[in-house]
């Protein structure tokens, strides 16, 4: 981002801040052990997504992005955390992940590596079709997408895995703010609905798992296996 210093308006500067905090959320999801705290981290990350949407709306005068920001806050910051804690029982939410596939420092280091990868992957794409904010939103969004996938694979508890998937979608949408801001509002609404269904279905499934097996450590589910 060499030309950033010349073009840095207040909105762009704030967008940069939101992007930084957004990425921090991905690291938070990897490192946080308490399930309830993970939910809170996700809610904050979604708030940063909404902030970035509002800032892009302010810069580009694309009015529908304000609506997108509003929908994001309503669904991802408020409704989904409530749904997830509500559908899965209290005991699930109060859980702490004791044993981990990888310890926290190693996981964070790998997360850092993925973020660096995302930056180098995004660079040639930016070169093909440059545009405003793409230099910030594309690499950060891609990094969150990759780190979300990593979160799903290293977390052993059900809810953190769900949050990993939801943060992957957050990453895709964060990049989308810069590269696909022209998507019709109806598509954004439908996508928000889709994310809501993910939270609902996975929350209910977590609850059933807990009722049936007495545990939500999904990594321990290994009954189905090719002998």
């Amino acid at each position: 981002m060499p030309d950033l210093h010349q073009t840095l308006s207040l909105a762009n500067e704030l967008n940069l801040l939101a992007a930084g905090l957004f990425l921090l959320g991905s690291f938070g999801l990897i490192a946080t052990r308490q399930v309830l705290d993970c939910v809170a981290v996700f809610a904050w990350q979604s708030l940063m997504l909404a902030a970035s949407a509002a800032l892009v709306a302010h810069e580009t005068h694309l009015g529908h992005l304000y609506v997108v920001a509003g929908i994001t806050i309503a669904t991802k910051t408020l409704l989904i955390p409530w749904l997830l804690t509500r559908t899965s029982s209290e005991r699930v939410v109060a859980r702490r992940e004791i044993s981990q596939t990888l310890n926290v420092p190693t996981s964070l280091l790998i997360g850092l590596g993925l973020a660096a990868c995302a930056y180098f992957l995004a660079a040639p794409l930016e070169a093909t079709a440059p545009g405003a904010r793409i230099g910030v939103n594309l690499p950060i969004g891609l990094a969150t997408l990759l780190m979300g996938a990593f979160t799903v694979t290293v977390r052993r508890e059900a809810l953190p895995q769900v949050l990993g998937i939801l943060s992957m979608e957050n990453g895709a949408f964060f990049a989308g703010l810069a590269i696909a801001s022209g998507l019709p509002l109806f598509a954004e609404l439908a996508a928000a609905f889709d994310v809501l269904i993910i939270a609902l279905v996975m929350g209910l499934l977590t609850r059933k798992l807990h009722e049936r097996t007495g545990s939500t450590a999904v990594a321990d589910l290994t009954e189905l296996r090719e002998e």
Partner: protein
Amino acid sequence: MILLLIILLPLAAAILSFWPSHRRSIPGVVTVGATGASVVLALDVAARCASGVIMTGLSGALWCDAFGALVLVVCAFAGFTAALFSIGFTRRATHPMESLRVRRYFVRLDVFLASVLVVPVLANVAFVWIAVALTTLLSVFLVSFNRNAPALEAAWKYAVLTSMGAALALFGVLLLHWSMRAGGGHTFTWAGLNAVAKTLPLTLVKVSFLFMLVGYGTKAALVPFHAWLPDVYSQAPAAVGALLSVLETTVLPYVLLRMLPLFPGASVRWAGSWLMVFGLLSAGGAALLLIQVKDLKRLFAYSTIENAGIILAAAGMGGAAGYGAMYQLMAHALAKPFGFFAAGTAIFFLGTGQLKAMQGLGRRSPWAGAALLAGGLAVTGAPPFALFLSELSILAGGAAAHRLVPVALLTLFMVMAFSAVLYHIVRIVFGEPTGEGPVPSFPKTFALTLAISLAPVLVLGMSLPAGVQQLMRLAAATLGR
């Protein structure tokens, strides 16, 4: 209008099925009626598209050409037979007092079917993504129908892995939107993208294609993203397995192959190579894994992966093999539900799906044994069935396009899969019975479903009507080569 009606029919059946009633048969009858009507409408759409018409609806939101119509017809037909099979299945798998559970099953089946049928008729690429993501979420609780720990484990793996795939595919879709804007396009539809295909920045289209290949490929259970599929199929009810199998070998290849025309000139060979790599990996991996299965539904699960691989590899070879890919897509989607219903019937007769414990099926119930044998022959491409001709046309088409190495590998994998499936099934049907016991009478809905779902595979294996040929030729032409 007619396109909209095809989607609305299952949704209407869902609402009617949920209506509380003391008669347990109502949800099933309603669902069969609605899905039967949608098959008739889909056939009408296919007949029009076969003459080169492109149908639209809902002021352009719905859009269907020959490729879409082909997928629509086979999915609608699979939905109809699955609903029919489910009537007998739910009657036996649930307690007479559990009418709510039966209602829920049919509501979920209807809504899931609507989400499957909407994919091939949606014009906007972003909406296609949402519909594909919904097909996962709406089928999770169909997979966990048995409500025991293994079923929930399978449902969890299914939901987590395919949702991860969906997020990756979403990124691919957004990249495609970016490339459309950069290329000067305005409508984010398949047709709108094709119109500006020559001006799209190639790097973006390529990266977008790769994200979609991995994302949608996870949902299509391509090797190495296939881990969830055998678990899901072994736990899901047979009718749900049949529908999922059709979804993974028609709708997902449809979405991926729609990307091919966006590669201008020689770059399409690049995309074709990726399709061949994943296609051959899937066909070969599944053929190897078929040898060691111990569960009947897993057998058909790996055969699904193999066929998804064959279809993608054939489409990747290009030329005349593209026609073979469409042929295979249709023939497999007609044959595989029959295989699953035959497996479900056999499991009903023996009370187990373990291959070892199933031996002697032919002695205990000759009809169930014959059905399973026919199912095994039909899904592996033995002569009297449609899949034989489609596999031949792929191999001939590939050879004509001078793709000799992929053709040789595909032939090897097809023979391996054929031998493995037949080895297991012959042992079940003709083996010595291990257990004795009273044999239940053959349920009428099972017999009816088997007869109805076998008919098209058998008929199309003997003669291919000109209309069907024309539809497949037009569908192959949409691949852009």
